[in-house]
């Protein structure tokens, strides 16, 4: 899962990015609306955390322009706690709305829900054969037994589970699992896939030569 944070407040941006990375998300960050819009349009993020008050281009404008080309789920972050602002945000195409100062666990839960909804899933638990992916607890269990997965491995399984039945290309996986700061060693992805296969069964992820991976 790759998330974009657009926030001009440096200390808030860094804290958010760290919290999201701890959750295993790949995180990109922009400190103004223009850069944020450029990132959002050029990459398929799983969600965007967008501040409203920013220099150059404010959150409303970024959202309006982004909605012309992309349906990426957007969570607005604002210091204005007024219902007409919420209405404006939701009408402009925001998917959720969080008022500063926010509670970090709540923000993370809202982001998870946002990503789940955008993948068309309404429950927390995705069951694939013997494997159950609990996106709320962020736990993967095999035949009812919780498995120890790293955050990155979990993100890989969750992303593929949300796109179950589809062939997920390596490029897609790179885009959604790694951010600009990660070293893009191509075999790193293979390492994660191989680790997941060891933990959840070799047949859990199938390889389509020349296309990518797939969870049936």
């Amino acid at each position, binding site marked *: 899962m790759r998330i974009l944070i657009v926030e001009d*407040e440096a200390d808030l941006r860094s*804290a958010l990015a760290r919290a999201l990375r701890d959750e295993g998300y790949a995180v990109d960050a922009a400190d103004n609306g223009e850069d944020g819009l450029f990132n959002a349009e050029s990459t398929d993020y799983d969600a965007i955390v967008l501040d409203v008050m920013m220099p150059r281009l404010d959150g409303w404008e970024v959202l309006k322009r982004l909605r012309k080309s992309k349906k990426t789920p957007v969570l607005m972050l604002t210091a*204005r706690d007024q219902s007409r602002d919420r209405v404006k945000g939701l009408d402009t195409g925001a998917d959720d709305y969080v008022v*500063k100062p926010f509670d970090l666990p709540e923000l993370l839960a809202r982001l998870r829900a946002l990503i789940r909804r955008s993948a068309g899933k309404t429950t927390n638990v995705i069951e694939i054969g013997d494997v159950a992916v609990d996106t709320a607890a962020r736990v993967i269990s095999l035949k009812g037994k919780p498995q120890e997965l790293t955050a990155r491995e979990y993100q890989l399984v969750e992303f593929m589970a949300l796109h179950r039945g589809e062939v997920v290309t390596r490029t897609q996986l790179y885009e959604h699992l790694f951010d600009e700061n990660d070293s893009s060693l191509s075999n790193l992805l293979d390492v994660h896939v191989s680790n997941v296969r060891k933990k959840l069964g070799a047949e859990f992820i199938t390889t389509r030569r020349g296309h990518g991976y797939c969870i049936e």
Partner: protein
Amino acid sequence: MILHSIKWRLQAWHGFLLVCLVSGLMTGFYMFERREKLQAIDAELAEVMTPLLPRYAPPNSNGPGARGPGNRGPQRPPLREGDFPGPDDGPPLRDDPPAGLSEQRPPGAQPMGNRERSLAAISSGRFYFIAWAEGGERMAAATNAPANLNPPKQAQPNQGRILRTQGENRELIQFVPSGRIVLVGTSLTQTLAQLHKLALALVLIGSGIVIVGFAVGWWLASRALRPIAEISQTASEIAAGDLSRRINASETESELGQLAAVLNDTFERLQATFEQQRQFTSDAAHELRTPVSVILTQVQSTLNKERSGVEYRETLEACQRAAMRMKKLVEALLELARLDAGQTAGKREPMDLSQCVAECVALVRPLAEERKMQLQSDLSAAPCVGDADQFTLVITNLLTNAVHYNRDGGEVRISTRAEEGSAVVTVSDNGPGIAAEHLPRIFDRFYRADAARTSSQGRSGLGLAITKSIVESHGGTIEVTSEVGKGSCFKVCLPAA
């Protein structure tokens, strides 16, 4: 309570005046009518008297008690019965006296003109007469004359005629110098009854007028006061919290319309003030939200798991920055609150503004040098009176703004001089300038020309508002001119010492 209302008081006065007026008019009318009637009766009495006098009391009568001839009235030759002065006088008086007239005709008494009418009046029973001889015995009397009436006394010797009202009778008495007395009277019963009826009618009409007048007055008062009731109703609704409402002032010509307009104007200003206050509170809260969310997010994300010492340090530093920002904001808010309350108006000492500016320039110079800026000062003595600490704050604010919003390597100039009656400080820069649409608002609290926060640099958005407050509390003015791309110039004028 209700009796103290304007409506009731108006009504009371109106009613009182109406009752006075109507009763006065009615009484006047009644009195006039009564006098007219009595006068008419008196005239009739005189008319009835006229033919009787020569008959019963000829002025040349020689009876005892006569004062002598020629002392009253023209001498007339006595007429014999049946002789009449002219054809106008109608048919002759018959020998048999008319009904109700008991003939005790004394010899020598002569009938006169109008006799017929007079006698007809007597014979109709409306009038009666009594004639007394010199000795006080009755000579003649109408049958309907009161039987027990004694001859009246002459109050003064020369009194000829007197009019009197005896019981319900009106009487005209003629004293003849010979000593005879002729009395003509009529009953007032009918007249009095008529007058009573008139009085009753007048009372009824008067009451009617008063009631109708009262009702109309009530209606008028209600109508006139209804707008007041509406105004007070709307005003109380506004007072209850709906400040956006306005009193309907459609009749702006009337006094009430003017009142409504004045009230509306007041509400307008109140609403603007409340709105400003609400906006200020909301802005202040908004300014605090960001540093609070920085601290909260930093701490929560750090505590999520075990971190390295460096990470803890970074977190603490971020929290410190946020806390410093809140401290600055709180200080600025307190400063504004103090200025608003006017508590700082106390300290007023004579001082030279150029010295104050020199200190500020020294303070800001390192900041300018950090960004490779020229900070040029042109200071000449500018004596003024005020609080040196506050002036320092004003000048530092203007200087740091000029440095902050200028481009690297730019230029900031500050000058002081004494102009007529004031000490002037100008701070100018050659930075990007301020767009015309922002100029009128840059002294507003929390207003920032670039909509976004540049607050990460620790700017509260209150600096210019505080500056303006301080300058104005000293009786000075601050103005700004700016041209996009060329730079801005702030000019502060303070009253000279």
